[in-house]
């Protein structure tokens, strides 16, 4: 009932009175119901069985085109005006409405189904002191419900108690914000004490007062009143609908917001409706056409007035005027009559056909096996079916890095220990061997605790370690000790690491496999298995990582009392702190580091140092003082750290590969060849981003310069940007050249376009988030845009989601170019929504990006197929369609215009009314549809071979206002031919037996046949790719025309529907004359040959890239694709401490909060989410939990 009521409230436009505060009492349904809060049923469907027809029709008539046709239909009902029978408009309109209604109904049925499925999920609810199973939709605000592990959270709940210590629960919020790490929620101690006692819970009489429903996921404010005592509530105590409970046996919660009031539903508001460039152009053109239509009608109305005065007035003997009609009124009426006759210029079928074409092309994307990723069974998906052709016009791509370009998998690839390089394989002649998936892996089976997924190919390292080489052992001991990873051992021997950064996870896993297994930790100790022997180190201090230090150290005491400091960090930082004895080793290691950096690996340098007992004692004392000091704590600690981290002994270096997704460099190269600019916007650190820039070929050694903008004031940012610009283009003007123009409907929209500036050579630009914040200010944004657009490659690092969107908006605003944003995480949602086209990488964890995207697929490399093949085809098809469609309708309509001069401007039509009804709907719709679904100028392989084919789309070359005007001139010519040739041929002519052929009906059937033949010939000329379907539709439509015509003009039809089919016998009597066929032949020649000649001549004089490729395609077979060359470069650039690391985890792992009551079930949620945008930018953490879950599920099935 409630939903019905609210539904009618909605209908009447009356919202419920604005809720100002929510007041909920636990276990008191009567009290809560008095407020009329929404229950937990959701309704995303729009209609029900009774409201469908009126509401859907109402919706449909809000579309301009449909409303226009309704208006025409009404005009046709006025007999003085009606120049055409009502059915010429009614039949197409009804068909269009019916088709749309069927589609809408189908969509709504699906929504009903999914609503029902969600609403009927079961949950345990505490009712009358008992736990009962209830459907979700029956849950009311104020109910207490019990959730179990892996259940979806039913509604927005106040967490009361949980099975876990400290009343913690762990939730996964992937559905909500896309972050895949577990988050911790903690109940109030007061409510936590109730635990799972049903009795206490059902007597719980707490009252919650809180904010009204809203869509802010990160904020909650309220108070809980129990026994007159107030307790504050914040976001930490709220479980939101859409989350999943993980690793928590059970928990109890109090429903605060249900169904439509939940934050999830409040967030799933209507997404901005995206329209393509062509849509906008089409709107403008339709307005033009309206203007043109009314001009034509106006001219004809004036003509009518003149005719009526001069001739009509004397013809009244034979045709008296209606009462009260004079020349003026008659011309006014004829204006409207011509509006009806000429209505085909604004064809109703245009919009429907455009939708069909887009839908078809979307299906082709869904069906493409070459965009299907077998590893996780993910096909590509066109989630928005109305944007296809814009894929062929992309000029700028904004890409996320982590998870999009890279797999977010770190692998320990190489290392240098004591001056010896490990990780490369050499053949007998000493050449480096390419490592592929088939290369034999090192066998770690001797180590029972080894991670089976770890792969390493160089045997010598393992041998070195097992031989007992002290440096190698120290190296791995360091890796096993110096980190902030949390272990998880659910079963004996089944270790899982929860790493804060994937790099650390990779390093600790490497140590684990090489025999130094990190087993468990407490705040004071770290236990590792050293070559099968259990050793427990005492953890004396963690010298945590931060951005300035760029290193991390631990100080541990071996059971034998020896104390050691282990340190890992960026090479430059560690090198400054090494003992002088390491000089020689440093040199060798540096060579190795250069080599690693050249391969695009992330490097770290490891060092250690033994500590003296008494020094350590004294240091510990000072450390304690410093860390408890009230003033200057940070500085004092830093000083202490600085003091102890020196004279280190170099151990070696590690190289971790941030694995790129397959084919990323090749894809980027292809896109660059297609003149698409790729900007990487990442939340990662500058070094990481730069590194990836090199490894995926965006930044190259042969670039003239890579500018780095990392300033802290607006002035500095400006200077750096200007410096970069002047370096690239010294002669560029101080002021950007901005072209101002107006566009859009009625020219209301002001546009400013910054012109591109020519730059010699390639440059790169790296800008960090801090500088970007200044650069995006009003006064600097143009400076940023100019500089950035001069560069081949732009990388923005450390950017917030909001900034990502701002960058996209900036380019959209001043470049008027089509943009595409691609990403996989929740932090990319803003830019995916902002860009013209949003692409989500699916198959990863977290669906937020995919849910808000327009297209989704599993791998970045599919982007080139989406753009270069599907996008290009869609664009070409759509352009061809529009051009042809306007051509055929204009030609059709112009004939009426010419005829007006012969029929006294009386709004007499040239054709039979049935031809007018069926022309767009039956005779000419299918051939052009099949063309715009199947046409290919060149096939996909050639499209890849010549990415330049993509460029014309970016420049709007195939369809524009100019093309439209050409199209009109073309139709004007065709209609002249099509009207005056039959006119001349039929005028004063008779049949071969002397009978009439110059009558109106014969002329009409001749003219319409000529028209149909000519537009079909034009279609054949436009078709580049003749499949059987095309043949079938083209010839089938012509055949259908003759079949239908002869049927409608037959005796039988006349005798049954006498006044509807007055053309009886016309086809038989006029089309059997050679005269008629000679006329048809001549009109076809005159209409088609000039087009052929023009195309041929243009192809000779100025062949387009398409012509060239097509010519090549005809001449030779496709050259074999070039072998995939490995991307390897010689580089002197070095990544710094390339960890995607943030500070503060050292404190966390040693804090009391993680005392483990039950060490076997120990778990840790790393993301104790601080609010603020940067926090959302944390890279995704290593999270084995989901994998396990996946495995267990798959093993079950």
């Amino acid at each position: 009932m409630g939903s019905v009521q609210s539904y009618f409230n909605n209908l009447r436009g009356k919202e419920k009175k604005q809720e100002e505060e929510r007041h909920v009492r636990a276990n008191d349904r009567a009290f809560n119901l008095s407020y009329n809060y929404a229950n937990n049923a959701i309704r995303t469907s729009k209609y029900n069985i009774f409201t469908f027809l009126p509401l859907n029709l109402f919706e449909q008539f809000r579309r301009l085109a449909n409303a226009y046709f309704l208006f025409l239909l009404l005009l046709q009902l006025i007999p003085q005006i009606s120049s055409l029978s009502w059915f010429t408009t009614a039949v197409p309109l009804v068909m269009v409405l019916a088709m749309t209604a069927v589609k809408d109904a189908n969509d709504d049925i699906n929504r009903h189904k999914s609503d029902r499925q969600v609403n009927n999920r079961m949950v345990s609810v505490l009712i009358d002191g008992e736990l009962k199973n209830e459907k979700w939709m029956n849950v009311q605000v104020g109910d207490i419900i019990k959730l179990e592990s892996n259940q979806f959270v039913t509604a927005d709940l106040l967490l009361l108690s949980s099975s876990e210590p400290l009343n913690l629960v762990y939730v996964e919020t992937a559905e909500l914000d896309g972050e895949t790490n577990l988050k911790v929620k903690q109940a109030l101690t007061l409510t936590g004490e109730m635990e799972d006692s049903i009795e206490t819970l059902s007597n719980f009489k707490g009252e919650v007062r809180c904010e009204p429903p809203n869509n802010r996921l990160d904020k909650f404010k309220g108070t809980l009143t129990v026994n007159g005592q107030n307790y504050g509530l914040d976001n930490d105590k709220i479980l939101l609908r859409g989350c999943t409970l993980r690793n928590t046996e059970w928990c109890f919660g109090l429903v605060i917001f249900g169904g439509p009031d939940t934050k999830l539903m409040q967030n799933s508001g209507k997404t901005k409706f995206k329209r393509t460039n062509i849509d906008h152009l089409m709107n403008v053109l339709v307005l033009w056409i309206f203007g043109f239509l009314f001009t034509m009608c106006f001219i004809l109305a004036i003509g009518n007035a003149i005719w009526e005065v001069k001739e009509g007035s004397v013809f009244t003997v034979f045709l008296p005027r209606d009462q009260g009609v004079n020349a003026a009124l008659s011309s006014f009426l004829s204006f409207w009559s011509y509006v009806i006759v000429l209505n085909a210029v604004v064809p109703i079928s245009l919009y429907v056909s455009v939708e069909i074409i887009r839908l078809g092309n979307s299906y082709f994307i869904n069906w493409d096996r070459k965009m299907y990723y077998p590893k996780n069974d993910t096909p590509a998906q066109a989630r928005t079916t109305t944007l296809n052709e814009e894929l062929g016009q992309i000029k700028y791509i904004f890409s996320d890095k982590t998870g999009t370009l890279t797999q977010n998998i770190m692998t320990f690839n190489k290392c240098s220990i004591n001056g010896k390089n490990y990780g490369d394989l050499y053949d007998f002649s000493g050449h480096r061997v390419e490592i592929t998936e088939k290369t034999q892996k090192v066998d770690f089976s001797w180590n029972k605790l080894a991670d089976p997924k770890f792969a390493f190919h160089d045997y010598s390292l393992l041998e070195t370690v097992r031989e007992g080489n002290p440096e190698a052992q120290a190296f791995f001991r360091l890796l096993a000790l110096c980190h902030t990873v949390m272990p998880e051992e659910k079963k004996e021997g089944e270790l899982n690491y929860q790493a804060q950064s994937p790099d650390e996870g990779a390093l600790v896993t490497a140590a684990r496999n090489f025999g130094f297994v990190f087993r468990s930790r407490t705040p004071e100790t770290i236990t590792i298995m050293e070559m099968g022997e259990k050793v427990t180190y005492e953890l004396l201090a963690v010298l945590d990582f931060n951005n300035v230090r760029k290193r991390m150290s631990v100080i541990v005491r071996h059971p034998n009392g020896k104390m050691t400091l282990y340190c890992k960090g960026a090479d430059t930082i560690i090198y400054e702190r090494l003992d002088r004895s390491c000089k020689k080793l440093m040199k060798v290691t540096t060579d190795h580091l250069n080599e690693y950096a050249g391969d695009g690996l992330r490097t770290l340098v490891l060092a250690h140092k033994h500590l003296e007992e008494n020094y350590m004692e004294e240091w510990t004392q000072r450390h304690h003082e410093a860390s408890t000091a009230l003033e200057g704590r940070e500085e004092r600690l830093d000083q202490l750290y600085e003091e102890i981290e020196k004279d280190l002994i170099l151990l070696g270096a590690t190289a971790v590969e941030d694995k790129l997704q397959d084919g990323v460099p090749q894809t980027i190269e292809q896109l660059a060849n297609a003149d698409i600019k790729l900007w990487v916007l990442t939340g990662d650190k500058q070094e990481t981003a730069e590194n990836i820039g090199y490894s995926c070929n965006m930044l190259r050694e042969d670039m003239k310069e890579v500018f780095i903008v990392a300033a802290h004031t607006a002035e500095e940012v400006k200077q750096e940007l200007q410096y970069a610009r002047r370096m690239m283009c010294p002669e560029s003007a101080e002021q950007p050249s901005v072209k101002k123009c107006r566009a859009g409907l009625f020219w209301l929209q002001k546009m400013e376009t910054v012109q591109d500036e020519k730059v010699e050579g390639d440059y790169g630009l790296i800008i960090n988030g801090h500088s970007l914040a200044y650069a995006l200010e009003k006064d600097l944004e143009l400076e940023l845009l100019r500089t950035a657009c001069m560069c081949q490659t732009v990388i923005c690092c450390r950017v917030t989601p909001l900034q990502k969107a701002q960058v996209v908006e900036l380019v959209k605003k001043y470049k008027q170019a089509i943009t595409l944003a691609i990403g996989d995480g929740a932090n990319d949602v803003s830019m995916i929504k902002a860009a013209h086209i949003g692409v989500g990488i699916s198959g990863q964890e977290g669906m937020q990006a995919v849910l808000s995207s327009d297209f989704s697929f599993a791998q970045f490399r599919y982007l080139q197929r989406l753009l270069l093949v599907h996008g290009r085809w869609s664009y070409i098809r759509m352009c061809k369609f529009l051009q042809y469609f306007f051509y055929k309708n204009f030609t059709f309509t112009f004939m009426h215009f010419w005829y007006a001069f012969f029929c006294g401007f009386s709004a007499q039509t040239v054709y039979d009314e049935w031809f007018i009804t069926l022309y767009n709907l039956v005779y000419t719709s299918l051939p052009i549809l099949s063309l715009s679904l199947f046409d290919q100028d060149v096939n996909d392989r050639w499209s890849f071979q010549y990415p330049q084919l993509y460029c014309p789309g970016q420049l709007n070359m195939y369809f524009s206002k100019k093309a439209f005007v050409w199209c009109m001139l073309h139709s004007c010519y065709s209609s002249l031919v099509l009207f005056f040739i039959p006119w001349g041929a039929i005028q004063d002519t008779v049949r071969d037996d002397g009978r009439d052929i110059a009558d109106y009906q014969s002329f009409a059937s001749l003219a319409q046949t000529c028209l149909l033949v000519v537009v079909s010939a034009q279609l054949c000329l436009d078709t580049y790719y003749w499949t059987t379907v095309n043949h079938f539709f083209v010839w089938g439509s012509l055949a259908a025309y003759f079949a239908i015509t002869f049927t409608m003009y037959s005796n039988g039809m006349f005798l049954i529907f006498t006044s509807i089919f007055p053309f009886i016998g016309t086809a038989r009597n006029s089309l059997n004359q050679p005269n008629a066929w000679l006329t048809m032949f001549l009109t076809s020649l005159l209409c088609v040959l000039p087009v052929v000649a023009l195309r041929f001549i243009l192809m000779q004089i100025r062949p387009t890239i398409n012509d060239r490729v097509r010519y090549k395609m005809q001449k030779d077979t496709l050259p074999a694709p070039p072998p995939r060359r490995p991307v390897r470069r010689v580089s002197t650039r070095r990544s710094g401490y390339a960890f995607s690391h943030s500070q503060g985890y050292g404190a966390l792992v040693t804090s009391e909060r993680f005392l483990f009551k039950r060490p076997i079930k120990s778990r840790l949620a790393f993301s104790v989410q601080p609010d603020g945008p940067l926090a959302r930018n944390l890279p995704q953490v290593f999270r084995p939990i989901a994998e396990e879950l996946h495995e267990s599920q798959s093993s079950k099935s």
Partner: protein
Amino acid sequence: MGKAKDRTGPLARRPDNSAFKQQRLPAWSPMLTANTVLPFFYLLALMCLLLGVWLLLTVQSTQELKLDYTDLGSCSECYELRKNVSYAEQGCRCKVEFYIDQTFKGDVFFYYGLRNFHQNLRRYMDSRDDAQTVGRESQLKNPSTYCEPFIKDKDGVPIAPCGAVANSMFNDSFSFNYQTSSGHIMPVPLLRKGLTWYTDKNIKFRNPKTGNQTLAQVFEGTRQPLYWQKPVYDLDPSDPTNNGFINEDLIVWMREAAFPNFKKLYGILNRAGDPFTHGLPKGNYSIQISYNFPVQPFQGRKLVVLTTLTWFGGQNLFLPIAYLVTSSLILLMAVVLTVAWWKFGKDGKNMKE
């Protein structure tokens, strides 16, 4: 999207590998190449030339004579008389003479022509009731509103056939006379039947069922169109089967012309007897015209057309000339294309990158 498939397993969602779904349908992709386009143009030019010449010869083999009698000779009196509507009832006859200097060989067709008469005005064309003229009895006395303003007369008696088209039927009549070389005047025999399309005569126009009644009885309760002198069942006094809605002159008139200048078949030379067995011999002819149809108000003209026919129809030079012009245009285009190809595109040199 699409129908969910009942596949399971690791590749459950893999799209089908069909040529259709993968857009690999076998197809023919023709291209405009010099090898096809240039010969095609030359061939078409030649074809049009031949067609044009052939048609020209055909058309020129026909003979045609047009005679505007609107105010010719004695008809000028009638022309003046018809200016005034009040004399509409008064008959007027006149005579026009003409000379044929060359024998019209074969069948000769006699047409009457009108200039500047708009049979193609929308309201005029719509003003008819096909259901009435197809002989529906219900419609006979109850004509459709389409016939406005000629549905009923002032007294409310329905008009048959109703509507502006029928009302304005051309009602001049002609009798042709041939003056033999001996000075003897003999009538030229005309067939006044077989002037219409078969479908019109037999299907589109039918008389109401007569049963035992005469036609006049069937039409009782209706009246003739206002401008008519004779009722519809009495249009052809010589042949009772040519009366009512199936009167051929009515049917011919009811087939509205597409353009304001048109001619309509009046009769065919009956070649049964001498001296017309081979057509119209040369000599002097005269036409006795019963001059009824007023054209003066709308500045129209009336003519009589005599013509012989070929398979191509009457004497219309438009198509032959159009073909000849087209042929030369195509030739011109072909030459331009050849030059362009020779200069730019020979051996694919323009296609090189």
